[in-house]
């Protein structure tokens, strides 16, 4: 279980939701734009609460926004 990481589809979902900007999403979920940017780039893993808030902003279940996937090169 060590070689797993959190991926997300926030960038794609923003595009599908009226080309929502990072700033707009950050205001909806109550964080800074830089935090959304870091999450999108998989450089920061959000708390469970923030992950739920982001999923709610897109009106999707959390599993459709965030995925826990094996690192590249790790046997599945």
């Amino acid at each position, binding site marked *: 279980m060590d070689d797993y990481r959190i991926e997300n589809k926030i960038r794609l979902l923003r595009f599908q939701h009226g080309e929502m900007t990072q700033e707009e999403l950050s205001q909806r979920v109550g964080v800074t734009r830089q*935090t959304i940017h870091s999450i999108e780039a998989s450089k920061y893993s959000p708390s469970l609460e923030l992950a739920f808030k982001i999923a709610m902003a897109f009106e999707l279940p959390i599993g459709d926004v965030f995925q826990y996937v094996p690192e590249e090169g790790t046997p599945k």
Partner: protein
Amino acid sequence: MIKHKTEHIMPRREMYAWSSLGMSLALLGYYLIAVFGWPSGLEGHSDYITRIFWRVLGIGFLTQLLLDLSKHTSWGKIDKDERDIMIESKGYRNAYYFVMVAVATIAVNVLLSDIIRQVGGNHVIFDSPYMTFHALVIALFITEITKSSTQLYYYLKN
């Protein structure tokens, strides 16, 4: 195309960290010069360097004041989020490590000063309460610098 915001305003907490780092460095420099005097090569530039210290202090103070005053505006509505708190905690953790090592080093040196003096002669650094006080003040400034630098490292890393 996915719409991107073209403006890249620095996070408020990163501004705090930069201003805090600048102010701590300026104060430390000012303190070192006040206590130990100007190094021989820099005496000729003392006015210029002192002006820089005051400017850095002034800019840092104004930045922090503006950030505090803007908390109730739309820009300052989200002052600190969970990522800022995580980065802040890493800064405090490293500052704590530093202060523990610094205080322990100073305490051991003070406690062993008599023995060191008897055995080795002139290897005691903090041979007076005056020097111990300065060492503690310098450690305090470096602790603040450690905190701000750690925070900036994590902000710039992302």
